[in-house]
């Protein structure tokens, strides 16, 4: 690049130098030509001027010649000397002559008229000319002045015998000078008259030296030669009687003159003289210089423009080439990038190939594992079935077989559900259906579900709720339950007997904004834990920890992958803290959208409440919740202290209104403490047990110990409120039945259900199930009939609607929309549960959009149907207890 730039700069300099040279040469040449032209012009002019002067001289000479001839003629006109004398006198005066003389052959001057002539300029030449018979002009001298003489030859014998050979007429030279313009300042050129020896004929201002030769030597510098050479040349020209011309520079510092001159010396006829015509360049020079200057300026301006033009072209070229260079560089870089990209892509592709192979292998492994996993319960089912058939009459044996078949079937169903979920995830078909959920209900449902297993596994379980900012949030409840249950079922599976399982739920302000609440959910266990290597692969599909252990515990290995996917879809994160043999904690962080419920204002009277729990955090959380509800809570960690406090309060006259005791305390259990409290203060004080365990298991023991009731964990603020408000009206607790059925037992008895199902057979099956479980059913044969039945019956007639989707006349979606848009109170509140054979998430979404609460897949699973009914009927319809009582 630098080389190229240098090349361009050198090229530029070269072209500029070339241009300058060409222009300068041109200028010099033009100037030279101009000078030459001027020289020629001046020479021509000079020739013209010189010729005019010579003609002038000739005409003067002609006149004088005629005058002298006239005088001569007088001499020959008469022999009478007196007459001659008179005529000459008369003519001389007439012609203003100074003197008229005759020249004898002896060289004497015979005066005829005027002051006598003393000398002539060149007597020898005069004599010679007279002798040869030709006239001549030359200077002369009398006593007083210089004269100019005109001499004509003549041949006359005077009376005294003198032989006259010429007649001279003399005139005042000034007149000649004037006529020849020798001293004129008005003409451009001026003239000198010199003799052949260089001496001046007439001395004027210009005749500075004695001879013209001397002047040439002293005051002039010829162009192209020396002064000496010039003088020689002039002399040679004079000798040859030729014209001579030169250009020279006249320098006279005394007179302050320094100018070029053109000079022409030409012989004057009828004389021995040379006329030197001089043309000073003077003004011409100035004009030429001006012209040169103008031309120079023009030339240099042109030069400058051309140079600038070239410079511009070069700059443009440079810029262009720089651009091209940059474009080239960019292109090169792009090519390099493209190459890099291609490399990256190749590497990525290679990586993807390897990953695909790995995934493929994992899937193959998974398939073989799954085949095994599916075969195991299938074998059990087939085997047990065969066994049952064999012992068909042995009722107990058959029952046992059926129980085992049921278990295996359930396990198989779980496996298949996981695989379906996974295939949904893999095909991107899993969608979230966010709805308003209550975290309290979610946690309660979850506790209900796992409680029996906790009991069966003899594990310790507790649940902590703290700092709940928004109990109601938007979330896909089905998927959230799936996540929770997945973690919990892992904890259940991998925690040994006597191990601990804890659930912790807390909230804080979300960085996502005020509309959100950050919800932390931790599930900890003291189970077998995981190796760091496995932890890395934890959420990969189709992976399971250590096959040996898996023999004991069964599963697809997809649970955590599905869980991870769901949490990702919800925009949450999962952290895992685990160590082999120590346990595992899964920590889920979700930013959930808050739902503000315009529910009733939860407020309790300022009851004094004692909380007894060995977990200080739980105490503090419960204290905070109760304080917010308006009560005055105290807490203590020990049973003994609790008894002391209750006694002291009683004595101080500010007794506790109610005591809440945890079932499990450190040194003693809650039931013993309750007994002691009863012993100390009697039976009036309500004592409630708090527990994450199943009330059914301890109910007998608890009631015997004088415990009035049970508050199930988790202890949300709303849980406490709903449990304690029962004492608000008259201070006595309502019957236990008022709580509503435990969803685990899923009691649907007493419900009145509208069943919309067009197919008689299906309707009959469903009706049979529902009626067998204590519900009453009203059957509608299509959507339109369902709408009419709902509309024509008074509010609250039905507890729920089971709606088939595909029906003639009006389909389930249309019927649901129509029911929801009815102007009556239960139109918006009644749970509508879809039943469909199209078990896709999109259908579920459509159901929700049509205003339905949830959907169930066909064929109907009666247990699931019951659970769903209980969930929605009791969630939606708080008034059901009263109606059930009425019924």
């Amino acid at each position: 690049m630098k080389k190229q730039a240098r090349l361009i700069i050198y090229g530029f300099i070269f072209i500029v130098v070339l241009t300058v040279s060409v222009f300068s040469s041109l200028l010099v040449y033009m100037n030279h030509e101009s000078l030459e032209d001027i020289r020629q012009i001046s020479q021509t002019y000079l020739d013209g001027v010189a010729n005019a002067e010579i003609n002038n001289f000739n005409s003067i000479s002609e006149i004088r010649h005629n005058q002298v001839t006239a005088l001569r003629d007088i001499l020959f006109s008469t022999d009478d000397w007196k007459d001659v004398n008179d005529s000459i006198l008369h003519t001389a005066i007439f012609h203003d002559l100074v003197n008229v003389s005759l020249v004898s052959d002896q060289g004497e001057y015979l005066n005829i008229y005027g002051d006598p002539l003393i000398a002539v300029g060149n007597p020898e030449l005069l004599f010679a000319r007279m002798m040869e018979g030709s006239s001549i002009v030359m200077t002369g001298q009398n006593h007083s002045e210089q004269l100019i003489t005109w001499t004509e030859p003549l041949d006359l014998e005077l009376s005294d015998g003198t032989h006259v050979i010429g007649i001279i007429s003399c005139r005042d030279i000034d007149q000649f000078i004037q006529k020849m313009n020798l001293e004129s300042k008005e003409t451009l050129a001026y003239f000198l008259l010199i003799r052949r020896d260089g001496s001046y004929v007439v001395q004027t201002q210009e005749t500075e030296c004695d001879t013209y030769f001397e002047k040439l030597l002293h005051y002039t510098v010829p162009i192209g030669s020396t002064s000496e050479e010039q003088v020689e040349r002039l002399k040679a020209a004079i000798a040859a009687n030729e014209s001579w011309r030169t250009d020279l520079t006249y320098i006279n510092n005394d007179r302050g003159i320094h100018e070029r001159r053109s000079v022409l010396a030409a012989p004057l006829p009828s004389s021995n003289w040379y006329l030197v015509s001089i043309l000073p360049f003077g003004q011409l020079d100035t004009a030429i210089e001006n012209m040169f200057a103008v031309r120079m300026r023009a030339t240099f301006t042109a030069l400058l423009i051309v140079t600038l033009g070239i410079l511009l072209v070069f700059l443009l070229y440079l810029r262009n080439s720089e651009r091209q260079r940059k474009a080239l560089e960019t292109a090169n870089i792009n090519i390099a990038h493209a190459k890099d990209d291609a490399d990256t892509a190749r590497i990525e592709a290679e990586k993807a190939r390897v990953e695909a192979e790995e995934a493929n292998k994992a899937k193959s492994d998974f398939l073989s594992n799954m085949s095994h996993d599916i075969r195991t319960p299938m074998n059990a089912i087939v085997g047990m079935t065969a066994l049952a058939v064999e012992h068909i009459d042995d009722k107990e044996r058959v029952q046992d077989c059926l129980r085992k078949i049921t278990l295996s079937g359930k396990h198989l169903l779980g496996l298949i559900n996981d695989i379906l979920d996974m295939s949904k995830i893999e095909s991107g078909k899993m969608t979230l259906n966010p709805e308003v959920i209550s975290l309290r209900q979610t946690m309660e449902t979850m506790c209900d579900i796992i409680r029996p297993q906790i009991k069966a596994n003899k594990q310790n379980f507790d649940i902590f709720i703290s700092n709940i900012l928004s109990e109601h949030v938007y979330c896909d409840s089905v998927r959230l339950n799936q996540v929770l249950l997945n973690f919990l079922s892992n904890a259940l599976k991998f925690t040994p007997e006597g191990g601990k399982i804890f659930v912790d739920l807390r909230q804080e302000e979300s960085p996502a904004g005020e509309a959100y609440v950050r919800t932390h959910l931790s599930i900890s266990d003291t189970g077998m834990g995981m190796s760091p290597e496995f932890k890395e692969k934890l959420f990969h599909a189709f992976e399971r920890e250590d096959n040996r252990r898996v023999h004991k515990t069964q599963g697809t290995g997809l649970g955590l992958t599905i869980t991870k996917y769901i949490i990702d879809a919800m925009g949450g994160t999962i952290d895992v803290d685990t160590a082999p043999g120590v346990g595992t904690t899964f920590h889920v962080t979700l930013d959930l959208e808050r739902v503000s419920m315009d529910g009733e204002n939860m407020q309790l009277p300022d009851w004094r409440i004692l909380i007894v729990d060995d977990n200080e955090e739980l105490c503090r959380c419960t204290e905070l919740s109760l304080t917010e509800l308006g009560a005055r809570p105290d807490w203590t960690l020990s049973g003994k202290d609790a008894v002391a406090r209750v006694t002291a309060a009683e004595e101080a006259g500010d007794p506790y209104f109610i005591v809440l005791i945890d079932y499990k305390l450190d040194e003693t259990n809650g039931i013993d403490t309750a007994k002691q409290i009863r012993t100390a203060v009697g039976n009036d004080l309500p004592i409630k047990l708090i527990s994450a365990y199943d009330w059914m298991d301890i109910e007998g023991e608890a009631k015997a110990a004088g415990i009035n009731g049970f508050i199930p964990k988790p202890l949300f603020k709303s849980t406490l409120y709903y449990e304690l408000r029962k004492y608000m009206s008259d201070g006595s607790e309502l019957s236990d039945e008022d709580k509503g059925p435990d969803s685990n037992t899923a009691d649907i008895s007493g419900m009145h259900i509208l069943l919309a199902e067009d197919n008689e057979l299906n309707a009959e099956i469903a009706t049979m199930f529902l009626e067998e479980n204590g519900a009453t059913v009203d059957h509608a044969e299509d959507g339109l009939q369902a709408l009419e039945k709902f509309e024509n019956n008074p509010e609250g007639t039905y507890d729920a609607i089971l709606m088939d989707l595909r029906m003639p006349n009006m389909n389930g979606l249309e019927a649901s929309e129509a029911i929801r848009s009815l102007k009556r109170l239960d139109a918006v509140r009644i749970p509508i549960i879809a039943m469909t054979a199209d078990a896709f998430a999109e259908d579920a979404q459509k159901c929700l959009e049509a205003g339905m609460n949830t959907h169930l897949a066909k064929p109907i699973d009666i247990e699931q149907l019951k659970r769903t009914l209980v969930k929605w009927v009791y969630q939606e319809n708080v008034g059901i207890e009263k109606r059930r009582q009425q019924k």
Partner: protein
Amino acid sequence: MTVQELYDSIGGDFQAAKKILQMDKIIERFIKKLLEDPSYSSLMDAWKNQNYKELFISAHSLKGVCFNLGLPKLAGEASELSEEFRPGTPRKLTDEEVAAKINALSDLYLDTRSKIEAFSKG
């Protein structure tokens, strides 16, 4: 002949039926009701009349019934037909192929039906 044996003979899934209907007696009661179910005849009518909307509803209905009764093969045939005529989705099969499917379903249904009839008679 037990109802399970009936199921074996008609290629039904007795376990599935049991899961749903839970008791043999109930299964027996309901499998006989299949004879009264109008889905099949309305399906055939719809096919004859080229009423595809009705065809879809009948097939869908038959599919539901058969699932509930633990007759997966018949349910599968019905399901394929219902998918073919699901409103809002383009047809995938030619009429000839559909006719073949209808015939297959018809053969299976009539076979099943005759066996159930025999079973219900004695």
